């Protein structure tokens, strides 16, 4: 019997997933389409963290800044270069990738808390620096308008469904590419770096170069996610990328399982759903303002503890075990 290769199996799975998402997009309301687009965007951003931390063993607390780089690059491509929005999203990924590569080269000698500190400084300073350039629109920021959906989709095709399609397809294609990459030579090299740098070096791997490549790839994915984020809010400004975004993404990655991409959609879902669940619980249970305001943080903390206790490798591994 003819055996299907792993690569083809993955491609088939992603095509099926895409088809399922398009069907789901047709059957849900505008609000869910909008939220779905956010889930896909967050999933992609979490995938960028997993690529860097889970696969290559580098810790970044500055992914919100890398998203901002992509977001500004995309917005400038649309506003100043009049590029097609899809091309602008690709530019967002490329520019953030190059920025990440340069940062990766500079930070190649750093690891652990030193790397975390450097990326943290980046997350704090980059949005502030963005304020200093008039071309970036200061605190007001600049528009990121992808325009109305193509007329051929019909009048009933809403802007939110258009967002959902773009966000979902971008996330699926990019996660498929990462997944393939991780099953290639690059993936094995990255895992070798993560597990034992000395052994990897003895095996002939150029540690500094590979770490920079991992940083660049991760930044590119984060940049695309940043482009999608500002597409969803129709504009980019420094306050759209607070430090808390970096921590939210890390939370999503831990819930997902930092060593596995299979649960990224769950991570994205958690980031979108927690405020909704907290709102709903708060309004049903009632209680003081302090309780209502602390509830989202409490739910996230509880989820993190539960994830670390019961699913340290993420829900993807659980599925694998059952299968």
């Amino acid at each position, binding site marked *: 019997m003819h055996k299907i290769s792993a690569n083809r199996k993955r491609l088939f799975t992603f095509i099926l997933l895409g088809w399922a998402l398009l069907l789901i997009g047709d059957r849900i309301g505008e609000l869910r389409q909008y939220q779905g687009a*956010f889930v896909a965007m967050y999933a992609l951003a979490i995938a960028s963290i997993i690529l860097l931390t889970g696969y290559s063993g580098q810790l970044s607390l500055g992914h919100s800044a890398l998203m901002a780089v992509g977001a500004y690059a995309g917005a400038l491509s649309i506003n100043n270069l009049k590029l097609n929005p899809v091309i602008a999203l690709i530019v967002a990924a490329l520019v953030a990738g190059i920025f990440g590569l340069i940062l990766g080269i500079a930070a190649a000698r750093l690891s652990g808390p030193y790397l975390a500190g450097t990326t943290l400084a980046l997350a704090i300073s980059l949005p502030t620096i963005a304020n200093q350039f008039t071309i970036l629109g200061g*605190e*007001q920021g600049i528009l990121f308008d992808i325009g109305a959906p193509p007329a051929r989709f019909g009048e009933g095709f809403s802007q939110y469904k258009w967002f959902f399609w773009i966000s979902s397809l971008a996330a699926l294609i990019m996660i498929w590419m990462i997944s393939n990459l991780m099953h290639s030579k690059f993936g094995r090299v990255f895992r070798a770096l993560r597990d034992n740098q000395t052994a990897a070096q003895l095996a002939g791997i150029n540690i500094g170069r590979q770490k920079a490549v991992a940083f660049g790839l991760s930044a590119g994915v984060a940049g695309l996610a940043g482009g999608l984020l500002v597409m*969803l*809010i*129709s504009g980019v400004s420094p*306050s*759209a990328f607070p430090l808390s*975004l970096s921590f939210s993404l890390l939370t999503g990655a831990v819930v997902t399982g930092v060593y596995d991409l299979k649960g990224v959609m769950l991570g994205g879902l958690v980031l979108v759903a927690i405020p909704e669940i907290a709102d709903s619980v708060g309004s049903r249970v009632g209680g003081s303002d302090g309780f209502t305001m602390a509830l989202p943080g409490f739910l996230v903390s509880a989820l993190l503890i539960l994830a670390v206790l019961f699913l340290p490798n993420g829900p993807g591994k659980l599925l694998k075990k059952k299968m």
Partner: protein
Amino acid sequence: MKRISIVSAVAVAGAMVLSALPAQAADPGVTSTEIKLGLSSPQTGTAALSYGKLPKAMKAYFDYINANGGVYGRKIKLVARDDKYLPTQAATQTTNLVLNDKVFALVGALGTATHTKAYAAAQLAKNNVPDLFVNTGFSGFDNKTKYPTTFLVLPSYAMEAKIIAKFIADTPTLKPQASFLIAQDDEFGIDGVNGFKLGGHTFTKAPTLYPQGGLSSALAEGALTALSAAPGKPVLVLMGTTDTTATLLKAAEKLSLTTKFNWIVGSVGGDANTLLALGVKSTTIDGVMAASFFPDAKDTSDEYVSQFMKINEKYNPGVSFDNVVLQAMNSAMLTVQALRAAGKNLTRAGLIKAIEDKGSTFAGAGLAPLNYSATSRVGYNGYWFGQLNAQGELKPFGGKLTVYTTDSATSAAPVASTYARKSIPKNGIPSN
């Protein structure tokens, strides 16, 4: 008999056709018993220190109106969502208000960077969702083509800057001094710098602009130290939110520079109660000059202030009355008048038209006139100048209260207004 049958058949067919025609769809958020309004504003985070009271104060006024019969029998329900003063949150929360909570209109949204994103993301223009009494002075929102459903309540920062420029030029103790501007690098800075240019005022040094939420104590101390080298008693204009005004004043306390400057604070950042609550000493605010278009929130002789205080005490217990509460209740009162002006058959288009047609006649606490019309979305269009005392009361500068009105776009000099404010509706309940 045959004729009767034909007539009957035609009548039945006609009835079927008529019944098959879609009834005119009612706008979301309005029933025979309720009007649902939405508010996205910071309830947590640093901006909540200044503006966290907004939703509850508005709700308190609406509760008061509901207890007194509502608007044509409909109770007002305010759905408030926390956007943390972040653009992403404002976009998602406003979209939630429109699509999930299905509000009839938005009211009292706060912030420019936040609300520009929210307006586009929630597709307020496409859905014709009225966007009432937005709390920002960014003149860009007065663009009816871009924001066809938006009505501002604050005067623009450009107007404020022009009037401050006139105040400095007209005050003999201030005119000869060096002058500096420290402004938030967003609509405050953009509009403020433009306004001073239009007002013909040139600062001694280029304005110091800082990012929203980015003015740390260290930066404030650095900026003040640099400016303190100027001789005499320089004029220092602060245009930003109250929390950043507090940061700067506390930095001046630390550096013993409180008496070095003639302080002028913008209307948004000059709420004395909030400044005191944020730890600024009463001796520091004593003598600070501030622009305002409202009466002083501590002035119990003002009929609007005293009525709103009573409502606040009963429907918002335990919350101190300040400029934010006054502003929130005033916006709520304007909202009730707008809803009443739109009539019993309430529609979104009707509400927008009602404000365009009658908005300039609404009663409100503001001492400057309202400027709504078919072509203008600007609310109040003027300021008066006062000086804070150690109790946090804003008293008219020089003992006489003069309101100046102006525009945001021309270099026409501000003029003293002859506007006579309307009396508050009986018991604070509009009956227009």
